[in-house]
């Protein structure tokens, strides 16, 4: 069964090719079937491969499939290799399964849009590329998937291309992530220079033996890879593109900008964990980036008015948690949170999509309100997603995954109290902004009357994701609940387990209680601030609120420091100053040419005078020299 591995990415690519080449000729029904069936089959094969991987694990818990030799020049010989281990399997499962659900949802959601086939072709291309990213056996091949998902993100953010603002958001996303990608490429150059190969596993095994821990090389490489990761995963300081990326259709936000692509950075760091272990400074920076990002984005989420931007900032913040986990060495906790986050955040985006669709494309939460009564189904699934995001204790998946991260932020070796403090403060913030979103959108008075009905193809994915947002956490219980860490155990085959410096079940329980209380407190706070009173109206124009609203002013700083100088520089030299040198030469000759041709008047007396003057000058020179 394992030999079928290549079909998992190949199926979505086949779907893409069919839709890209013949999409115009196919009916909407065929397009919908092709688009979702290709990912559906891919998900099915992933599950079958996964089961066979679990029941009958290959040697070393690794399965490799070499497809062909890609580039071969001397020792530089990256292959097109698929690499399957527990880490890639978890990612593959989320990509194909959630991907399939979102495709299914899109068949109903996008049905009125022109460019139906184009939409599904891009989506299929995305799923295929994302699969390559997580299945790649060497870094160049990984880089291919890495950039290809960026392309799909660009194409889908700008899907409604007639509005130039969408085009701007799309280009912003691509260019900002490209900055990270280029840093990552430099990381690859460093690695190849050192090891003469870019096979991930070979590098990881040789790294500890050949590179000293904490050496400049190790730190530089890790920082470069981190550069790529912060770009893709919208972490500080390259997070600015994600809120604008919400210009794309809601299924795109759910699939690319919540569930899968933006977590590629998490995957990259987990995949190359040895490099970060060998560069403790860099690993601490990962944790700091995560901690700071989760707080900054949390505050920003608190002030947004566009429902999708709340979710975007919340995504940035949640990925911050994953980075925090990676930074303290809790590798599998990061992967766990990635998985639950994919479920509940996809659910929230899809739910928000339904709301937006039924309110005539209204994004502003303050024009919604009271939808609890008129859209009960959407309300309930959205509520479940929100509960999971806010990490409502015990019954939601988000609680379990976040709890492990918080625990290791405190207890792991190389951690710091401040990390835990940031995490716990973040979970209060999360509870507040999530409840604020729910209260403003679904409670209070009705401001816009929804229209239309929700199709079954839209409802089914929401139900499945809602169920997963609740029970998805039960595959990995906290340590003090007993010995029930199935996901961590599975990942431990390929990722090291986190080392806790503290082994006190009492403290662990205490911390769980603290965070549970904070979550409930957050919900109550939101109730007081946003449902009882309308704090947003009072503060919307004032200092820090506005500052948070605009994402801490990063956009402004980049505009002034980077964009304006670059545009100015290119506009001022539009005609290429070097050109003036050559036209100068031409002008110089032209000048003398005109001057001398003026002498050729054709009048004899002028010539005679010229000869006479010349003769006099010559004589004077001769006489006096």
């Amino acid at each position, binding site marked *: 069964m394992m030999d079928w591995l290549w079909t998992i990415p190949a199926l979505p690519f086949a779907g893409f090719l069919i839709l890209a080449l013949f999409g115009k000729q196919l009916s909407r029904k065929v397009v919908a079937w092709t688009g979702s069936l290709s990912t559906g089959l891919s998900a099915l094969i992933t599950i079958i491969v996964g089961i066979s991987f679990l029941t009958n694990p290959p040697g070393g818990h690794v399965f490799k499939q070499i497809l062909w030799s890609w580039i*071969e020049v001397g020792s530089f010989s990256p292959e097109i290799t698929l690499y399957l281990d527990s880490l890639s399997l978890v990612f593959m499962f989320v990509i194909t399964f959630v991907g399939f659900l979102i495709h299914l949802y899109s068949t109903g959601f996008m049905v009125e849009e022109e460019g139906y086939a184009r939409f599904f072709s891009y989506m299929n291309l995305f799923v295929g590329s994302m699969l390559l990213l997580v299945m790649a056996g060497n870094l160049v091949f990984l880089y291919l998937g890495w950039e290809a998902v960026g392309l799909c993100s660009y194409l889908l953010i700008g899907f409604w291309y007639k509005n130039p603002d969408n085009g701007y958001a799309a280009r912003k996303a691509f260019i900002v992530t490209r900055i990270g990608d280029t840093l990552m490429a430099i990381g690859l150059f460093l690695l190849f220079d050192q090891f003469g190969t870019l096979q991930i596993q070979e590098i990881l095994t040789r790294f500890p033996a050949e590179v000293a821990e904490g050496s400049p090389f190790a730190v530089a490489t890790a920082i470069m890879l981190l550069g790529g990761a912060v770009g893709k995963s919208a972490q500080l300081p390259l997070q600015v593109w994600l809120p604008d990326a919400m210009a794309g259709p809601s299924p795109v936000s759910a699939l690319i900008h919540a569930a899968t692509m933006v977590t590629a950075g998490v995957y990259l760091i987990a995949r190359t964990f040895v490099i970060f272990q060998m560069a403790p400074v860099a690993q601490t920076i990962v944790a700091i980036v995560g901690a700071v990002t989760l707080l900054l984005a949390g505050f920003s989420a608190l002030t947004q008015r566009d429902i999708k931007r709340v979710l975007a900032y919340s995504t940035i913040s949640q990925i911050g948690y994953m980075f925090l986990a990676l930074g303290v060495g809790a590798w599998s906790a990061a992967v766990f949170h990635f998985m639950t986050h994919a479920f509940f955040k996809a659910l929230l985006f899809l739910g928000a999509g339904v709301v937006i669709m039924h309110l005539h494309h209204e994004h502003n939460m303050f024009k919604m309100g009271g939808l609890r009564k008129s859209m009960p189904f959407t309300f309930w699934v959205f509520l479940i997603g929100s509960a999971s995001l806010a990490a409502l204790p015990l019954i939601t998946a988000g609680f379990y995954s976040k709890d492990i991260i918080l625990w290791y932020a405190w207890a792991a070796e190389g951690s710091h109290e401040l990390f835990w403090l940031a995490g716990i403060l973040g979970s209060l913030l999360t509870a507040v902004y999530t409840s604020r979103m729910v209260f403003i959108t679904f409670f209070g008075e009705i401001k816009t009357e929804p229209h239309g009905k929700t199709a079954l193809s839209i409802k089914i994915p929401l139900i499945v994701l809602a169920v997963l947002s609740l029970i998805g956490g039960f595959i990995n219980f906290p340590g003090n609940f007993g010995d029930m860490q199935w996901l961590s155990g599975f990942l431990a085959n390929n990722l090291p387990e986190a080392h806790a410096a503290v082994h006190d079940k009492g403290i662990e329980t205490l911390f769980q209680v603290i965070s549970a209380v904070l979550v409930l407190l957050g919900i109550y706070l939101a109730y007081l601030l946003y449902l009882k009173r309308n704090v947003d109206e009072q503060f919307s124009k004032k200092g820090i609120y506005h500052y948070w609203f605009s994402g801490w002013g990063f956009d402004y700083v980049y505009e002034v420091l980077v964009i304006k100088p670059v545009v100015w520089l290119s506009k001022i030299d539009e005609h290429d100053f070097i050109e003036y040198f050559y036209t100068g030469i031409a002008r110089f000759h032209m000048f003398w040419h005109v001057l001398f041709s003026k002498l050729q008047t054709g009048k004899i007396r002028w010539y005679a005078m010229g000869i006479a003057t010349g003769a006099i000058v010559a004589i004077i020179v001769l006489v006096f020299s």
Partner: protein
Amino acid sequence: MVLVWLIVILMGAGLLAWMAGRYNAMWPRFIALVALLVGFFMSIGLWITGTPTIEAGNGGEWIQHFQSDWIPRFGIQFHLAMDGLSLMLVILTMFLGLIAVLASWKEITHRTGFFHFNLLWVLAGITGVFLAMDLFLFYFFWEVMLIPMYFLIGIWGHEKRIDASYKFFIFTQAGGLLMFISILALYFIHGDATGNYTYNYLVIAENFPGTRAAPWIMAGFLIAFLIKLPAVPVHSWLPAAHTQAPTAGSVILAGLLLKTGAYGLFRFIIPLFPEASEAFAPAAMILGIIGIMYGAKLAYAQTDLKRLVAYTSISHMGFILIGIYSFNSLAFQGAFMQVIAHGISTGALFMIAGAIQDRLHTRDLNKMGGLWSIAPRMGGVTLVFVLASLGLPGMGNFVAEFMTLVGAFQVYPVYTIIAAMGLIVYAIYALYIMQKVFFGRKPEAVKMKDFSVREMIMGLSMAAIIIWLGFFPNNVLRTSQPTIDKMQENIREYRQTKELGGIKAFKPDHESEAGIQLTKKSE
């Protein structure tokens, strides 16, 4: 003999097309198409069947070889040889020639006979440049590709065609003459030293004495090649020529003429002047970086679509300089791959720009926008090449640029990091093209037809090739590998002799003599 045929067919068909054009405007098109198809399949045949087994001096192994006397009194021969490098370039020439003919099918209606004559002769000249192993013959072909191109720009070009054609001619000719001086210098120095006065490149390359004049002789070649490539600051002719030329002219300029500069660096500069090249390498790196950054920056500033694409060529050629002057086979191969991939991708972009201009009668980006809604096929094809231009993995250009950077990093890490930043700028201008032309709001008045079947055949075949190069570059890399290995070996040999303290073969007294003679002869 096959090699002679490749050139003769093009030249003969050119004459035939000129004559046929007097009677019927369609005939020249078909004649050119058939001639190029024959040439294309002949060269593909060589690729499939040919193995580099022929010894022709210089220790190299050649796929095809032809040698006969031309002007024996001066030691000038009609001497052609083909190795993997030139084979790939000849295939590229024939392919882009086909594209050029198809692109002008509807566009050129005025004097089609003479047009196709010029077109085929430019291509013949380029083929000759890629094959000539006699320096005099090389110079001859160098001129053959210049003059018909001058006519192509000057007669069938756009509004400022005359200025552009002058500029093109003067720049290229200035470089050509400097190169000719250097060729003569090689001829006399080699002749004086060995008594064998010959223009045979293979003989000269084998026995050329290390002389103090070498940097100056190299400079002559180098300036010619850098103008053709082009490198900043001798790039000024390019935007004018590319913008003003008819579509076929732009395709050939960007896809092929620039590549003769790169080919010259590969074939002549590095093998003949290893020492001087090594001394020049840091400067070449800086030139390459300036080219990459400055070209991309200028591209972004343009509002004229063809001019924009023209500046991107300058930028991409910077990678070739960096690749060649890193002196390792990975970077060499990267630079060579860039020659092929950039030839296809930029050729395609000019084809598209020409198609747009033909329909809208403007190249001004501000007058375009939202064309995706009326020309989705054109938009899809353009997207592929815009992505190739920004170096997206999965395209040949990525393979080229990535290999170049990985290779160069091992020698010049700092320069390479700066060059890699170019990838960010590429994304800026490339997506700017898509936004300005195909996305955004469509001006009400703009109406045009989508790609026709003929244009789709061109677009899709080029797209298929660029993606094929992106996933299966080994087919090309294997073909060029022997030549690259040979270059690498020469450099290694040279470095070894240098370490042992001696300069290749010749004694110092000879050297000074040769130096004096150079100054005399070149006067």
